[in-house]
């Protein structure tokens, strides 16, 4: 008699399990990890670089390594510096990629959630990483002097 009743909101057998089967999204997990570490690095290291190399150096307020070829090349040859620069430049891009992708979602571009967008954004970060490695290896040969 009540077969057609709209008791849509009664909750019972198995209704809580949701529409799809759940499994941990390993990809998300990985990109979030990269996002988090990139965020920390950017937060701790970037301001001082911008301040000194972007402002104080060009204005001539303090001497800075990258203002003269000699000192700059000297420092760039150091393998530890190369490693540091790789971390400093490449890793934050995973943070940026993640944030910008979500920013687009927040601003109403649902497509940014999809796999193609993930390939573009995280792929971009990977590309920057590869580019950084290439530049670091080709710019000043490693020297231990």
């Amino acid at each position: 008699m009540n077969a057609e009743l709209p008791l849509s909101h009664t909750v019972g057998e198995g209704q809580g399990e949701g529409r799809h089967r759940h499994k941990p999204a390993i990809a998300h997990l990985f990109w979030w990890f990269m996002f988090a570490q990139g965020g920390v690095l950017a937060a701790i290291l970037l301001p001082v670089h911008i301040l000194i190399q972007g402002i104080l150096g060009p204005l001539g307020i303090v001497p800075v390594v990258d203002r003269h070829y000699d000192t700059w090349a000297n420092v760039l040859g150091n393998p530890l510096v190369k490693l540091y620069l790789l971390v400093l430049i490449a890793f934050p891009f995973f943070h940026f990629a993640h944030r910008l992708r979500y920013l687009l979602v927040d601003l109403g571009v649902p497509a940014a959630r999809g796999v193609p967008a993930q390939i573009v954004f995280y792929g971009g970060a990977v590309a920057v990483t590869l580019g950084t490695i290439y530049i670091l290896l080709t710019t000043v040969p490693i020297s231990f002097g």
Partner: protein
Amino acid sequence: MDPTSYDVLIIGGGLAGIRAAIAVAETNPRLKIGMVSKVYPMRSHTVSAEGGAAAVLSKDDSYDTHAFDTIKGSDYLADQDVVEAFVREAPLEVVQMEHWGCPWSRNADGTVAVRPFGGMTTWRTVFAADKSGFHMLHTVFQTSLKYDQIHRHDEAFVTKLLVENSRCVGVTAIDVRSGQMYAITAKATILATGGLGRIYAFTTNGNICTGDGMALAYRAGVPLKDMEMVQFHPTGLPFTGILITEAVRGEGGYLLNNQGERFLKRYVPNKMELGPRDIISRAMTTEFEEGRGFEGPHGKYMHLDVRHLGEATIDRRLPFMRELGREFVGIDIVKDPIPVRPVMHYMMGGVDADISGATLMKGLYAAGECANVGLNGANRLGSNSLSECLVFGAAAGRAAAEQVGSLAAAGANPIEAMLKDETKRVEGGFLDKKGGDERIAEIREDMQHSMDEGAGVYRTKEGLTELTRRLDGFRERFERIKIDDSSRVFNTELTAAIELGFMLDCAVAVAHSALAREESRGAHARRDFPERNDEKYLKHTIAHHTEAGPRLEYRDVTLGKFEPKARAY
């Protein structure tokens, strides 16, 4: 699966109802269980209980002392066999709650802690800070989600019990969201609809505490028991009636009058702030009358002072009280005393039920605050009620589960006819009704104030007679009720109207039962009969519904090893 037919149907998603549902599921996993609640279960009023649940846990405690405290607290109106069973079951239920995840507060060694409570001779109230009811309700509710056989009807409002050959075969309900009326059939039905505090104006009870289950049973022919026994809690916040838990006094708070004096020394010298609620409420009322209360914009009040406990204790044991003080009164209880006055809090009376929750009607059980299984007598001790919901909720669930095996389901034909009748009553009587000039809220407010005046902490023959007269008037006005809202969808005015009808029935039962009991016992204090009269009234009041008004009978109290004595603290 047919969402309108169950083996066991539970009305109410509070602590008692959910506990019952789980008990059914565990007793017989194959039973189909329905749970109907007019609000989402976690909104049930159990959520606002603060202080804790009583159970014998510590080594220096015993079943006998818990039983004795309960019976003495009840002013000997409790049935002693029920109390004995209760005190033995309560500790198991408390442990069960712990296993389900209830975050009971702990001792330093990680064992479950207890705190003192009014009228208890020793520390036996387990608690989850001062949000015990909240944590217990969410714990049982979340645990109940694990049982797929418990099928919920959230926001479905029960309007009537369906009775066939003097057996309860289910209910009719309004699906509040769609406004549809429908019948739900069941082999056994458990009422767990909570209290009726809203028949009073100044109460700690929430908007949903309108005595629905009591009225449903009463109208269906099941009597109500001891309805004159209404508990007033000494410490409610003026204006809002928000409860300041007894645990505040349990933790060592002082009650002070306007002379800064712990006035309870004149009333309960041995127990002071830990005296039972009825006596302290009367003490406060007397102090007010003698001019020793503070005067505020919302009437007289006393101070409840916890400043000497220190911030650390307050934050660990009473954080919610601090929050309530800050948000609703604008005080910091670490630095300011809390204004409090007696407030209607709890209904000892209820649907007449036995030790397993069975009522006189076949197939109908009752548990929790809406039931009277004979545990609380004339005055409930603080923290016995949450334990009662667990113990007797589970008992009713088990009893119902065992009973349904032997029962056949109700036939569909008479049910359909009953549904039609009830739909006509509800839709014709309220929704599509023409004319009428009485506002629900106005009748309700008049009733509430009349109850405050006529059936408050102290009662008299004149006051109660006047009250019954007025209630008759309200019932007449209720016939001329007018509803603004003709929509079907989520019509809360319709449910409020039906609730008002339920409340009026309950109020009438309270007033008549109180008028007839010509003695003072527990919460029922008659100025014209200040003494207890065991000869005549060591009996339960049993109120039967008749068109003309309640027909009262008396039933002997079950005594046991504790002889009735004078009750002094």
